[in-house]
């Protein structure tokens, strides 16, 4: 079959590529910023998980003879007005902040993605879902949180739910617009012509192509959740003293800023680093997950 040979000349061979997770990891490694982000996030998660073992003091251990000491060899991050070791509190605070961020983002994805897919894929559901999302978006986040706290009682769980729910409209809108865009593409039509059900089309064709956008949104939402938790805790709607979170530490350092600037600065830097790490990782993941090496 000579024609095949002719055609083969025209269709040059591409490099073979490894599949799945290994490929993503390799691509991530090639991007130094993403790699830095990955390292930061992994280190933060490890520190948070092993806070018990790593922390030099109990987070609520007070020592009034060493109150408000600046960073030193004994207390790397200094102590607060009650003589509590700030490094220990940051480590435990990291645990709280990261879990609130992870759980609230997970919650908003679990609720928002199916709703967004449904709204984008089924035209008749769109007005309903979109109006509900708009209404939720118009609702001030704090009012929502206070309302929830009134119903469920103030706790870390309540704060997580409030933050997650507050994030749902954004997820719905993004997922919806992705579904709307992808639904019109040829490969979706081709899948339908091959006998794919709506569920298969959504799960295998639309969702995987929307993942990149969702990852970026998640990495933006996670730092916002850390800040949101701080705000709610500051208002007494989140974690209760003496338990620390990064946000609470930041907030409670406010009146002491002149006497102990490290109390605000060090947890603040931690938030910045974690946020930055998440964002860099998110950007890198988005690029690494895209099977096209260069944008079309």
């Amino acid at each position, binding site marked *: 079959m000579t024609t095949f040979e002719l055609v*083969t000349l025209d269709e040059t061979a591409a490099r073979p590529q490894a599949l799945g997770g290994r490929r993503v990891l390799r691509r991530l490694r090639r991007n130094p910023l993403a790699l830095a982000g990955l390292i930061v996030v992994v280190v933060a998660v490890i520190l948070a998980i092993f806070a018990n073992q790593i922390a030099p003091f109990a987070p609520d251990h007070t020592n009034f003879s060493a109150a408000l000491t600046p960073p030193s060899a004994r207390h790397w991050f200094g102590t607060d007005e009650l003589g509590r070791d700030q490094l220990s509190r940051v480590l435990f605070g990291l645990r709280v902040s990261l879990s609130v961020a992870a759980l609230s983002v997970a919650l908003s994805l679990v609720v928002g993605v199916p709703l967004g897919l449904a709204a984008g894929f089924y035209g008749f559901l769109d007005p309903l879902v979109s109006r509900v999302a708009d209404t939720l978006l118009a609702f001030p986040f704090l009012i929502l949180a206070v309302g929830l706290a009134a119903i469920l009682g103030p706790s870390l769980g309540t704060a997580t739910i409030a933050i997650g729910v507050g994030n749902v409209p954004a997820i719905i809108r993004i997922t919806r617009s992705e579904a709307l865009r992808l639904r019109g593409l040829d490969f979706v039509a081709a899948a339908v012509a091959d006998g794919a059900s709506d569920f298969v089309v959504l799960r295998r064709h639309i969702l995987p192509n929307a993942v990149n956008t969702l990852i970026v949104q998640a990495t933006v939402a996670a730092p916002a959740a850390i800040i949101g938790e701080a705000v709610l805790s500051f208002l007494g709607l989140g974690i209760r003293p003496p338990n620390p979170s990064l946000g609470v530490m930041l907030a409670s350092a406010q009146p002491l800023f002149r006497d102990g600037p490290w109390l605000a600065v060090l947890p603040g830097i931690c938030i910045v680093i974690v946020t930055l790490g998440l964002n860099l990782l998110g950007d890198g993941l988005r690029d690494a997950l895209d099977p096209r090496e260069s944008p079309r």
Partner: protein
Amino acid sequence: MTAGNGVPEQSARDWTIESVPSVESVPSAESVPSAESVPSVGRVPSVESVPSSLSGRETLLSVRDLSVRFRTEDGPVLAVDAVSFDVGQREVLALVGESGCGKSVTAMALTRLLPSNANISGAVKLGSRSLLDLSEPDLRDVRGKDIAYVFQEPMTSLNPVLTVGRQIGEVLRRHQQMRGAAVIRRATELLDLVGIPLPDRRVREYPHQLSGGMRQRVMIAMAVACRPKLLVADEPTTALDVTVQAGILDVLRDLRAEIGTAVLLITHDLGVVADLADRVVVMYAGRTIEEAGTDVLFARHSHPYTRGLLEAVPNPQRRADGGLREIPGRVPTMRNSPAACTFAARCEFADEQCSRERPALLPGPAGHPVRCFHPLPATAEALT
């Protein structure tokens, strides 16, 4: 699936009456040699008798009075107007016409692959199953398994985030309940079948790593994965360059021989028709206007529109007398089925009757069905 208003029902009834003799009564021609190239100048018809509608094959797909009406913001649009045709077992039937003639809509309507604003009426039978009456889940079993589609745009018809093997495998999992390593093995075989070199490597690659011709081969591999009874190829080579086109046509021809699938070929490329098709249905503005065996159509076509299409084929030997000819005007958009010839406005033979009466699809001077009041005489040579 009911008609929107009174007019189409009227037209459907007209149609049934006029179409019956044309489909059944024509004698058969066994030997229709496949044409080797684009129609050449003054080619003498190689067959004596007029080919029948099915060249003596058993009917696989029968379409009767298929009409498709779209509700749009600008009012109703009649895209397909009471079209009837049959596809025989292992037959390649070409659906030919300009863009906007309703070819693709006809093909999509077979398995109700149309947006929700489409209203389909008529009857589509695959074997003994009436497709338009099937429930959506039953229809999903037909799609991709009994009737598979290959679309025009290979560049965008594959999911960019799934490997080739996964995408072919999806069809196998869905329709053949294949699981595990067997899926990838079969996908590799299929890639080999459609002439993709190094199939065991390609199967792990993503669509962006393949060229357009390769992707179209992958699409074909997906389409034939379940050995469909009918392969609908909607302008399968339009987006590809000429050398790649030839390869794709070879693949289609080989597959037809190998797995015995019938092909409904939708195209406006008469070179492809001459190359591949056994029989041709010419569509214009949603109606079938001529139906004949491929060789007969090229040699003894009767409809002025068919002649226009044939004359619009670029031909180096005709450059002397004025270069490329074209049909003046454009395909009209139909709101309803007019009691007139839809081609009248562009036809050089049109007279008052053409704009007043609907021509019927009746055996014309050359013996095959044509919808025209002033068909070209049977002695007309192909391209003069």
